[in-house]
């Protein structure tokens, strides 16, 4: 065990850096959320109020957006797990020659700029986009499906962004399972399905949970994609905060919303990492 002063010396640069360039700016923003905002006049100096927070809790619109954001986070996370697991399993356990190409194809789309990627989706998902045109030409639907400015479009766009993150974390988790355990279960008479549900899945749960936390957090604070694929009719917390900051210039409400969102996210991370520890048997 090395002395603590070495640890301090190693960790201090990052700790000080974050203190100077993250904690300080954010702390300076905190008072803003307790200020009063007068439209057209700006932030009233010297006023202190809890009103912004009270309004967030009392206003049914804010509550709706908050639940929608959390719901969206959960839905995208779930979609990423469901779509990502077979792919991760294939990468981790499939033929070795497919490993590298598949991995590259997972990482590759991450390189596409988010704004441009959203344009790509718009071209695909619009009422007269590629998908609707194809379906109509095939005679499968009579009128275009609404694929944008609603949950569907946002789910598709956000799942596409965060799926690679999930796949990469799941691959690592699946690789870490000792194969003997699965063989042991099989010799004890388990079917493939049972081995998967009773052994493989629980053993990858911590990795899956870690990936889920990451995807969830990134989803609920995503801005560009919700703005472009969700539009004004499907607002989430991040776009609402953006609007308060950038459209109405009501920074006090905006920062109060931001701290509420951050608080929610931290609470969820904390709760789920406790859950992970319990699953992993270390709590």
């Amino acid at each position, binding site marked *: 065990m090395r002395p603590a002063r070495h640890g301090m010396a190693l960790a201090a640069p990052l700790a000080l850096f974050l203190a100077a360039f993250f904690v300080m700016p954010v702390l300076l923003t905190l008072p803003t959320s307790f200020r009063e905002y007068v439209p057209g006049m700006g932030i009233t100096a010297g006023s202190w109020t809890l009103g912004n927070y009270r309004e967030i809790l009392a206003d049914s619109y804010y509550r709706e957006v908050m639940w929608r954001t959390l719901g969206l986070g959960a839905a995208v996370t779930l979609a990423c797990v469901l779509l990502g697991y077979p792919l991760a399993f294939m990468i981790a356990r499939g033929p070795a020659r497919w490993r590298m190409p598949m991995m590259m194809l997972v*990482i590759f789309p*991450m*390189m596409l700029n988010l704004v441009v990627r959203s344009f*790509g989706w718009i*071209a695909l998902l619009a009422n007269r986009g590629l998908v609707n045109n194809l379906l109509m030409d095939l005679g499968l639907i009579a009128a275009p499906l609404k694929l944008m400015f609603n949950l569907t479009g946002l789910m598709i766009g956000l799942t596409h962004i965060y799926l690679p993150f999930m796949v990469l974390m799941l691959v690592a988790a699946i690789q870490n399972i000792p194969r003997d355990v699965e063989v042991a279960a099989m010799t004890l008479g388990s079917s493939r399905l049972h081995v998967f549900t009773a052994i493989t899945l629980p053993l990858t749960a911590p990795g899956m949970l870690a990936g889920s936390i990451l995807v969830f957090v990134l989803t609920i604070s995503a*801005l560009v994609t919700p703005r472009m694929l969700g539009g004004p009719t499907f607002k989430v917390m991040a776009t609402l905060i953006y609007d308060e900051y950038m459209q109405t210039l009501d920074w006090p409400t905006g*920062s109060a919303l931001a701290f509420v969102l951050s608080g929610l996210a931290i609470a969820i991370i904390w709760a789920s990492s406790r859950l992970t520890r319990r699953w992993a048997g270390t709590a």
Partner: protein
Amino acid sequence: MSDMMPRRPTAIAAWAVIVFLQVPVLVVVLAAFSTTSYLTIPPQGWTLAWFGKVLSDPAWLSAIRMSLFLAAGSTVVALVLGVAAAYAIAHRMLPGSEMLTALVMAPLVMPSVVIGVAMLQYFSLIGLRGSLVGLLCAHVVITVPYIVRSALASLGGLDASLEEAARVLGATGLEAFRLVTLPLIRPGLVAGALFAFITSLDNVPVTIFLISARQTTLPVLIFSSVEMGVDPSVAAISTLLIVVTGLVLLVAERRTGFHRFI
């Protein structure tokens, strides 16, 4: 040999997901060749004009340079700061390491618009506004979580006695890290650096507040032109960027084989 190998349905599902991941890439690449002056799919007529336009426009080129510089610079700084701290955390060398971990991850949680405005206010106060240093620091803040996360994971999987063996064999602490630990965690770090690089390369909400008039980044330039209409040159530039980063990715893979360690 274990029987838990993917069977045909799994393989089909996996390839379907791979296809899903490539779809918008294909759309954008195709749109880059369209003769229309707006983004459209399928392209109407084929042209290379947009590539020519982008490659001859100094604004796009300098934005690309700026973005790549910023992404590379912040990734390097984040690697140095992040790996050192992760090392201390992983080896339980300091009290309160859980708090430090939480602090490092916090920028992921905070909505980035708020970080952007907060930093603008703060940088105005301390005189860093519009400076490259300030922008670099901001990007380090948003990229360092990915580095620390992957470094912690890599270090956690490492046998602590390897470094001790090196020490007993006569290596100094730094030598032991350089000769033993670093080569072993490098693939994990490459993966973390990849996330960091992409995060920096894609960032709009923080960057947009901190750039100065003479420097802008690619995503900010694209984002600001959205308001005034997007022509296929953004698709062309994205295509170019994808090709370049794709090649970098392949080279990195060749050199480190990092895909096996993600």
